[in-house]
């Protein structure tokens, strides 16, 4: 997997790091995506005149949709950074990809009507929809797609996307609607990545101005961008597929979850894309006015344990040597009542997990009870390891959920005789520098929202400082194998790190969406495309 090699170059590492963190700030606001639950998806293989459930709007009435979101894009080019905010607003709405991810996490045609893979899994042939055109009327042809793949590889695009596209060795334009893409090695993940920001097909005319203008082929186009406030999209009247149901779709950005709630309660918003303060969910309990959707995200709130590996080329780290003893790590895991923690920190919403994997992963295995809450056993393990008087530094970033969880964990570890010193690190800079870069911590807490991030345990330089050849081997095999091998090996890796208590996986973040009465079609789960797909949404 590209992920395990992500730390090779400095700049890349920095941006990779940030992606986890930016997402952590937004706390898995990432997105809800895919085809809707209630409304039929119009874009399976959209052709002009495809049937749609959208009620025909009255001609004089402006149909608007206002979505409250947390993280605001710094640029309108979703490929320029790996922040979740760009794809959230623009992917599938303004920009389209060859293939898309639906709500179930399956690949569906979008710009490509169909695709074939050679038996050696090295060459993909995409057949583009001949109707597809950019908002200025130019057709989306094979040439344009090839230029976009090249741009991701060589342009000023996010290192994360470059890593995803690294496996591509060549493209060949067969004819206007047929494109061959050749990979250097078989990859299970590449086509999934192509359904996200890496696969965006932008009008090549718009490459230069991508940061401040959009040049997509989707059902919406940019109306105006007000930094610090909102991004307003308007209907693309020349859309080649099923037209948008809304004349205007606005993403409004809120730093303060309370302000977002106030806006929703006052009726200004139609949707809260992901509730940032789950304890406030009761405010929306009026079923006549609001609907609450509880789904899942790819995010794991993890308490990192400094496992103490010190590979060459990275700072040595300052982890307490006691943490290299698996008994101590198990004791820490067993000393924490994660159910009670979830109730306190995230209002009981979310799922308890036992490894770096969420229930929507194809390789998921429920390991939540592998090391159950048992303070007596924890004390026994600590005594056996000879660490009855352990003092650990818990250094959470200054993020609300992390500091709350830290308070809780400090209290519980104290009960089994571990003295915990809580020292907050200013987020992002101080935390990245101290915890992530220099591994100068014993314990820390952050939410990891990248998909398939179990692979980070195969990188001893990652801030877990976890060095286990068995995991590295499994992750390597997974990346190059077939779908079946991938699933087996990833499950294997997730199980090994769980048995090793390499970290404490506190819970999987839920996707909590609030909609106004009458809004339907919002996807339940957030998936790795990061898109908040409005094409499936309808409003009565």
């Amino acid at each position: 997997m590209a992920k395990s090699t992500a730390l090779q170059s400095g700049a890349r590492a920095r941006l990779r790091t940030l992606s986890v963190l930016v997402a952590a700030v937004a706390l898995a606001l990432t997105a809800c995506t895919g085809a809707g639950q209630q409304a039929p998806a119009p874009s399976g293989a959209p052709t002009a005149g495809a049937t749609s459930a959208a009620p025909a709007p009255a001609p004089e009435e402006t149909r608007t949709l206002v979505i409250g979101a947390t993280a605001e894009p710094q640029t309108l080019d979703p490929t320029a950074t790996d922040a979740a905010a760009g794809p959230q607003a623009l992917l599938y709405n303004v920009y389209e990809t060859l293939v898309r991810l639906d709500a179930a996490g399956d690949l569906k045609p979008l710009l490509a009507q169909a695709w074939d893979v050679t038996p050696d899994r090295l060459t993909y042939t995409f057949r583009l929809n001949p109707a597809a055109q950019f908002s200025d009327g130019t057709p989306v042809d094979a040439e344009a797609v090839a230029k976009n793949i090249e741009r991701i590889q060589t342009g000023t695009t996010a290192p994360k996307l470059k890593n995803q596209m690294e496996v591509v060795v060549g493209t060949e334009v067969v004819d206007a609607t047929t494109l061959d893409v050749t990979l250097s090695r078989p990859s299970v993940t590449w086509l999934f990545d192509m359904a996200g920001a890496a696969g965006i097909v932008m009008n090549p005319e718009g490459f230069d101005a991508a940061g401040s203008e959009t040049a997509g082929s989707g059902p919406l186009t940019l109306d105006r961008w007000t930094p610090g406030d909102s991004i307003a999209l308007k209907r693309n009247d020349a859309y080649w597929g099923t037209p948008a149901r809304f004349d205007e779709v606005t993403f409004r950005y809120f730093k303060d979850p309370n302000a977002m709630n106030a806006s929703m309660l006052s009726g200004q918003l139609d949707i809260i894309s992901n509730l940032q303060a789950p304890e406030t969910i009761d405010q929306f309990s009026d079923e006549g006015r609001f609907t609450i959707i509880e789904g899942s995200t790819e995010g794991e709130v993890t308490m990192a344990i400094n496992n103490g590996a010190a590979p060459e080329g990275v700072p040595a780290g300052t982890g307490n040597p006691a943490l290299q003893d698996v008994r101590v790590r198990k004791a820490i895991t067993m000393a924490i009542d994660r159910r009670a923690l979830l109730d306190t920190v995230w209002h009981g919403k979310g799922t308890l997990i036992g490894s770096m994997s969420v229930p929507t992963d194809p390789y998921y295995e429920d390991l939540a009870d592998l090391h159950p809450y048992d303070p007596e056993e924890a004390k026994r393990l600590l005594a056996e390891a000879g660490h009855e008087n352990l003092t650990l530094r818990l250094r959470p970033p200054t993020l609300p959920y992390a500091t709350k969880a830290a308070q809780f964990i400090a209290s519980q570890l104290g009960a089994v005789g571990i003295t915990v010193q809580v020292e907050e690190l200013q987020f992002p800079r101080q935390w990245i520098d101290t915890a992530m870069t220099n591994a100068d911590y014993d314990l820390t807490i952050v939410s990891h929202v990248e998909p398939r991030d179990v692979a980070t345990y195969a990188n001893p330089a990652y801030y877990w400082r976890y060095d286990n050849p068995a995991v590295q081997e499994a992750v390597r095999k997974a990346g190059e194998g077939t779908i079946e091998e991938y699933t087996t090996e990833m499950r294997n890796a997730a199980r090994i790190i769980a048995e090793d208590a390499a970290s404490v996986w506190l819970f999987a973040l839920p996707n909590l969406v609030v909609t106004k009465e009458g809004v339907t079609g919002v996807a339940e789960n957030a998936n790795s495309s990061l898109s908040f797909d409005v094409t499936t949404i309808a409003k009565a």
Partner: protein
Amino acid sequence: MFRQLLGRLGIFLLSLVAASFAIFVITQALPGDVAAVILGHGATPEQLAAKRAELGTDRPFLVQYLEWVTAMLGGDFGRSWFSHLPVTTLMAPRLGVTGSLVSGGLLLAVLIALPLGAVAALRRRQWPGLLTSATAQVGMAIPAFWAGIILVFVFGVLLRWLPPNGYVPLGRDPGRWASHLVLPVVTLGVIQAAVLVRYVRSAFLEVLAEDYYRTARSIGWTKWRALSRHGIRNASLSLVTVLGLQLASVIVGAIVIERVFVLPGLGSLLLDAVATNDLVVVRGITMVLVFAVLLINAAVDISYVLIDPRLRAREAS
């Protein structure tokens, strides 16, 4: 008098230099290497050197300062470290937001504080005056953001009379612009008025102690007549000074209010830049805010010289 005006101008310019230097020193004091902060860990020495050269942080401190100032004089506040957009581009659309909020808040504060301050001074021993003073004391003790949140709760959420937050530019829809500004302006204005009432009261009290007021009263003028004849004009001098001083606190108050009401103004931009450690942006906005305060203070100073005959006479002597 011309000489005094020149002197004031000189002081203003010197103040600007001192303030800009202070801001520069503070923002350069970032522990560690800026290039390393931007690039993150694992950056090669070559990459770091290239970044330092790009940022100019490899040059002597004074040279960097002078370059920053020179560029600002030409309207160039640098580019954001992370979004790479010019700071002026980031600030431009937000000036109107902060401007509307600050001027609205200040205006409202004056409209409330003038009559209440007069009442507090003239009826200082009776219940209207006592009540006014007491209310002002309580008002000063309330955190502005708390007041704002409560207003949002009552008028935005419970009653739904006004939008709880957000902003619409004046040019797009004047009606919605106004409705979105009501709650923030009221919050800012009322809290500032509480402070201002006290100054207005003491300004009037000073007038009441002056000879001309006593004379007017002794020849049978009513309090109100004596005060409106002599008082307002004389009190307004000290009020102008107070307003100048207050402006700084109104601008800073606006930073918090913008966060409460999700207004895309300079304050929000500043706080966002602080959150991402984008010091170029932080530096630029701080400079603009401090410039505004110093400019107003200079204007107050100059108007003082122009208005007050006593001061003019004293300076001339």
